[in-house]
């Protein structure tokens, strides 16, 4: 576990967040704090609301009740499209299914948002995109199209695309779940580097070993609630809650 400076300021705060889809109560009072420069992993069974938490944080979903703060922005109170866009410029999101734009080359996928949305000039954006591609070890793929890349390569492009916006926070939603086992490692290696460089991340993941290794804190969700949270070593090896214990046993055997 990387060393963290003593109590940095929180970047993300969720307080008593509730959300339901019709009669399906998906989030039932979620509290979560993520400090600047730290990585928090969310683990939990399928359908427990992990993705929903991430979508609430960047304003893709609006909670029914509760507060969500990202820096000074009260996400739960954002009403206009433009305010949500301003928020999303600060938050990167990497999806399980990569969701690259298939009609654009790798380079175009990375520069389109800085150029069109931030108004960065093309030359600068392309130079930065080149650096980012080197960082995710795909410097030779700038001209390729998403359909020509492996899943692991596409996912690394998706990470570079998110980083091109210089986000304060990046949300990773099960980014290795759709990958072949051989390519999982290359994506995790990239994320590990980012965490070490001090990027604030929230990772939804099923890679327990990885979560234990890189996270400052791990959160266990079940049935729309945060059942337990704490330092990775404690949560994985000495869970206090019986449900956490059962889940960790089930996935590690």
């Amino acid at each position: 576990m990387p060393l963290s400076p003593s109590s940095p300021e929180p970047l993300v705060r969720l307080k008593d967040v509730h959300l339901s889809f019709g009669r399906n109560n998906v989030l039932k009072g979620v509290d979560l704090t993520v400090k600047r420069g730290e990585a928090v992993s969310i683990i939990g069974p399928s359908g427990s609301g992990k993705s929903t938490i991430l979508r609430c944080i960047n304003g893709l979903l609006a909670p029914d009740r509760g507060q969500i703060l990202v820096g000074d922005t009260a996400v739960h109170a954002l009403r206009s499209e433009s305010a949500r866009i301003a928020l999303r410029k600060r938050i990167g999101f990497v999806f399980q299914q990569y969701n690259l734009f298939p009609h654009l080359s790798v380079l175009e996928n990375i520069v389109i948002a800085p150029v069109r949305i931030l108004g960065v000039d093309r030359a600068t954006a392309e130079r930065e995109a080149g650096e980012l591609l080197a960082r995710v070890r795909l410097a030779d793929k700038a001209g390729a199209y998403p359909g020509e890349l492996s899943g692991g390569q596409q996912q690394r492009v998706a990470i570079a695309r998110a980083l091109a916006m210089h986000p304060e926070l990046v949300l990773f939603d099960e980014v290795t779940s759709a990958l072949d086992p051989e390519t999982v490692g290359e994506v995790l290696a990239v994320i590990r580097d980012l965490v070490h460089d001090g990027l604030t991340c929230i990772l939804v993941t099923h890679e327990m070993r990885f979560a234990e290794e890189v996270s400052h804190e791990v959160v266990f969700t079940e049935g729309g609630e945060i059942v337990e949270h704490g330092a990775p070593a404690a949560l994985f090896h000495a869970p206090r809650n019986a449900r956490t214990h059962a889940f960790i046993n089930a996935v590690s055997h």
Partner: protein
Amino acid sequence: MTDWLPSLVSGAKHLGLNYGFVLNPFERTAWLSGIGVTLELVALALAASLLAGVGMAVLLTSNRPWLQHPVRVLIELTRNTPVLVQLYCAFFVVNMLLNRVLDGAQHNPLTAFAWVIIVLSIHYGAFHAEALRAGIESVPAGMRESAASLGFSRRQLLWHVELPLAIRFALPSLINNLINLVKTTALGSAIAVGEVTYTSLMIWTQHDNVLELMLFIFLVYGLLTLLVARLGRRLEHRLRMPGYGH
């Protein structure tokens, strides 16, 4: 003209084909101008129909009922009634009313030629719009979410993601529509627009050489549809997304 023309014409005469009009400079020019008009009709209606199609598709997928419904009605009306009747309604009804409002035909800027373009662009625009709408709707939800997460507005999403993908999905249908549009320009002759069918009609009523002109007309439209199909295929190739489909 040079002398190969008369010898060709007399050669055709031996085959029983009367192409004498080709040697008459007046009739030849008239007929060739018909081809020119057909080309103009095709080029203008093609471009206008695509613009109309994109416009209607954007309105159709706008999530605003007061925009969607009128466009939906227009599309259903134009797709389910004969183009010729639409042309008559435009030319004999709307144009006549317009003449009246503008105090006489001489103040009305819209000619029969313009009406053919208007009617064809709305008609085929409706077909394009349906194809594009289906394309926009088949853009996966995850693609929209990822664009939103990058800070794309609704408009930017439409122009940079949805439409580019929709055009690629819809391209085979769009090309098919455009080929039909090329053929439908022949209807211009019904309201005396001097396109190639009309000028041919004028000539065969004079010379009773229907079959001979038919061969020419088939050739003209055959080449035009071939051209559109070729250009379409080239565009398909240019726009193809490596790694997806073929």
